[in-house]
């Protein structure tokens, strides 16, 4: 092997490798790496692939439960959902590409996560997305919203999977660094899951899907371009998604898996051919030899370096049973996709890459992953904020005015404008479409179903990373309970600032601890996830945003619960304890312009008891509507139930001893609103609450009916007025009028 290019310190730096990391490489291979090898190391050892800053802390997350089939470490997590079926799911970020090119950044994000799911043998049945944009009045925000939403829809709609839920919020801390987190959920037979681990020596390695171009070869390309005289204009670093190709890839892969010819499969995501090949070999304790002359290329004159680092989309790598290669190829030809045998498994534990008869890389395959740097980066805990007493924060406006303002504020306004651009009905199994607490989809012809939600409250995480981390998981749990689902597992997408800054590292560390704590107590393990660091805007980190994607199971979707008021003259009950917590609340930010104060704490043990109690009430048919309380508190929850059911309510009693605005808008955790039809049922609920053996309390607030919502001591607010305020903001903002 000869080094055509001298590896200079500049080149090393351009590959994002620190001097000590380069020393580690030299020690590992005992010589100077070739350029291709340097590229391979940079891809394997960057933050995205190696989790070098977060790995240490992620270890603390609970990942096991009797129903977990596959936890973190594969393309996606897998849980048993009964009836011999498994649910396969994961969330992933595409933050930086979406800021540069919102449409393509978002499409390729969705495409990547869908591939992660069907690589495991699952047919995708739903997508969700969690989006964070800068302040609405920032000049870039509107264009980013429009591009990202169109991109998510553009990919999912064409691919043919319903996008059933998500989250969308605005804050100036995302001005220069938006978040685009996409989640995909698939269904497979529990005993037909496919993994990345290669087995057998001399088995063919097959390349499938679209051709390889010079897509997404990041900053590193610039470095290499200097040595490659065929390099043309400065290459764009964004990839273009092709949902059509991916749909064909899905059908072809599932057909191939059915045919019994697949030994191992891995999608080519970040770091493309490099990480997919290395992972397949390393997991199976095998070497891999690739012959790049066989790789289907879209562009002329591609170098080994470029092929190994390309992030062209819609590609897969498989290890096939040699006897079935021909049959496999026929399936791929039928779907019009590229199919090429580009290498084989070996017993050498080396990762060997050949091109034009020359060896371009020859590296120890296990060490490429196992010896990746691992950092215990210094971190500091976020200083605790004082708890704000509600008595000390008077309301500058009437509660009626506050409600109308909040319900039409950017974070709480209806996101209909978004989800109407997503096909949320395709496949004919969407039992609860966007707009409820969780989406509910039926599996096949039923009766089983899934409850799906995406949650996090970044301002709580900023105020107190540990409590905020707990809260994100608890809110996902609550949203699943509210539709009658049994919470089963989560995927997490940890979006944080620069880990080399101790205060941001501290946010990461404490958020993870909070998540872990909540997962443990709630029996809600993490089965997959993704970490996105270095998210900052003008040198300031984004709000810490550990997005949680929650999955729950319903045994019978026909019994799913919704939040809409169902009929007049029903009793409205608040379950859970209210202290009027205004610190770090939406009310505080929107109405007083303050973002201070400690966030509401989450009592996890009580959370679990409350959740189980609510599930029991739903199962036993004691309640007619259920809605958990989150941003904006009780008043927003009531308004949402009224608007959904087009039935009003009269609230006569609030939790006692609090300023009214604190009772209405405080964001105390662990609370649900219920409606109940009969007095006997109220008595039964009261009995269950009384004997739950915890501090759980309930309040009877009032009754449903009429066409307006009447808060204590306020003029009624018509449902029409609520709807106007709620539905108006986003469409008019996007039209440029707001």
């Amino acid at each position, binding site marked *: 092997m000869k080094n055509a290019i001298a590896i200079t310190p500049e080149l090393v730096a351009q590959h994002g490798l620190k001097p000590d990391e380069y020393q580690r490489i030299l020690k590992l291979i005992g010589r100077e790496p070739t350029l291709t090898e340097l590229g391979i190391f940079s891809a394997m050892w960057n933050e995205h692939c190696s989790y070098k800053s977060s790995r240490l802390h992620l270890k603390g997350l609970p990942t096991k439960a009797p129903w977990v089939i596959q936890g973190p470490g594969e393309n996606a997590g897998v849980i048993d959902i009964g009836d011999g079926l498994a649910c396969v799911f994961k969330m992933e970020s595409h933050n930086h590409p979406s800021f540069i090119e919102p449409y393509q950044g978002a499409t390729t994000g969705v495409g990547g996560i869908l591939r992660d799911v069907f690589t495991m043998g699952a047919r995708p049945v739903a997508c969700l997305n969690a989006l964070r944009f800068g302040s609405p009045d920032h000049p870039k925000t509107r264009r980013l919203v429009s591009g990202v939403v169109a991109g998510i829809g553009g990919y999912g709609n064409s691919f043919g999977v319903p996008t059933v839920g998500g989250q969308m919020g605005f804050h100036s801390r995302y001005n220069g660094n938006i978040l685009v987190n996409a989640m995909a959920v698939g269904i497979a037979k529990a005993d037909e899951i496919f993994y990345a681990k290669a087995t057998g020596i001399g088995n063919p390695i097959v390349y499938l899907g679209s051709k390889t171009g010079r*897509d997404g070869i990041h900053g590193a390309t610039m470095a290499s371009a200097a040595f490659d005289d065929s390099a043309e204009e400065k290459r764009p670093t964004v990839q*273009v998604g092709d949902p059509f190709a991916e749909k064909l890839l899905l059908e072809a892969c599932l057909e191939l898996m059915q045919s019994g010819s697949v030994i191992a499969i891995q999608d080519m995501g970040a770091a493309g051919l490099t990480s997919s090949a290395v992972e397949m070999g390393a997991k199976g304790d095998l070497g891999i030899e690739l012959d790049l002359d066989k790789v289907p290329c879209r562009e002329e004159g591609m170098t080994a370096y470029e092929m190994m680092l390309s992030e062209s989309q819609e590609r897969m790598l498989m290890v096939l049973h040699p006897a079935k290669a021909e049959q496999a190829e026929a399936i791929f030809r039928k779907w019009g996709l590229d199919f090429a045998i580009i290498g084989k498994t070996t017993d050498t534990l080396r990762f060997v890459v050949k091109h034009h008869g020359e060896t371009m890389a020859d590296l120890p395959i296990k060490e490429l992953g196992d010896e990746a740097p691992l950092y215990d980066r210094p971190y500091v805990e976020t200083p605790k904020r004082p708890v704000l007493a509600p008595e000390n924060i008077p309301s500058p406006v009437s509660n009626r005015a506050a409600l109308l303002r909040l319900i039409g504020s950017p974070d709480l306004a209806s996101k209909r404008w978004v989800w109407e651009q997503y096909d949320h009905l395709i496949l004919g199994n969407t039992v609860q479409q966007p707009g409820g607490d969780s989406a509910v989809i039926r599996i096949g012809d039923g009766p089983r179903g899934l409850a799906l939600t995406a949650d996090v409250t970044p301002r709580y995480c900023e105020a107190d990373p540990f409590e905020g981390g707990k809260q994100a998981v608890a809110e996902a749990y609550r949203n699943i309970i509210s539709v009658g689902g049994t919470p089963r597992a989560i995927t997490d997408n940890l979006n944080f600032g620069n880990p080399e800054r101790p205060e941001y590292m501290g946010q990461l560390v404490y958020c993870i601890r909070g998540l872990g704590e909540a997962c443990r107590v709630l029996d809600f393990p993490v089965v997959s996830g993704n970490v996105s660091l270095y998210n900052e805007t003008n040198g300031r980190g984004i709000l810490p945003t550990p997005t949680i994607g929650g999955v729950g199971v319903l045994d019978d979707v026909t019994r799913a619960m919704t939040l809409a008021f169902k009929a007049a003259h029903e009793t409205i009950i608040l379950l859970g304890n209210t202290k009027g917590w205004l610190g770090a609340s939406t009310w505080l930010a929107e109405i007083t312009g303050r973002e201070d104060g400690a966030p509401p704490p989450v009592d996890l043990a009580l959370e679990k008891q409350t959740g189980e109690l609510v599930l029991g009430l739903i199962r036993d048919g004691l309640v007619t509507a259920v809605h958990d309380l989150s941003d904006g508190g009780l008043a927003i929850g009531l308004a949402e139930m009224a608007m959904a059911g087009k039935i009003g309510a009269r609230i006569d009693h609030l939790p006692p001893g609090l300023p009214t605005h604190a009772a209405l808008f405080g964001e105390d955790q662990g609370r649900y609103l219920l409606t109940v039809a009969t007095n006997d049922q109220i008595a039964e609920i009261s009995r269950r609450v009384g004997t739950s053996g915890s501090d759980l309390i309930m309040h009877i607030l009032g009754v449903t009916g009429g066409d307006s919502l009447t808060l204590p001591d306020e003029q009624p607010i018509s449902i029409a007025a609520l709807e106007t305020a709620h539905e108006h903001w986003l469409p008019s903002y996007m039209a440029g009028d707001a």
Partner: protein
Amino acid sequence: MKARITVTLKNGVLDPQGKAIEGALKSFGLEGIDSVRQGKVFDIELDSNDPAKAEELLKSACEKLLANTVIENYRVEILG
């Protein structure tokens, strides 16, 4: 005054549309087509009589709206 703006994909950027069209043309038995790349044109009619000013404004329209300069090139022609 008339102007035409042509927006094309940069070299090396994947063109799923062009690829699908290429495949379709080949499957129709149209021999001899190597590759297809798709782009857009905008035909614009203007009142203005100042070609230099029009060109400048159209360029800024391309930068801001008509072309996605991360992946596309554009060309403005004033046709008079």
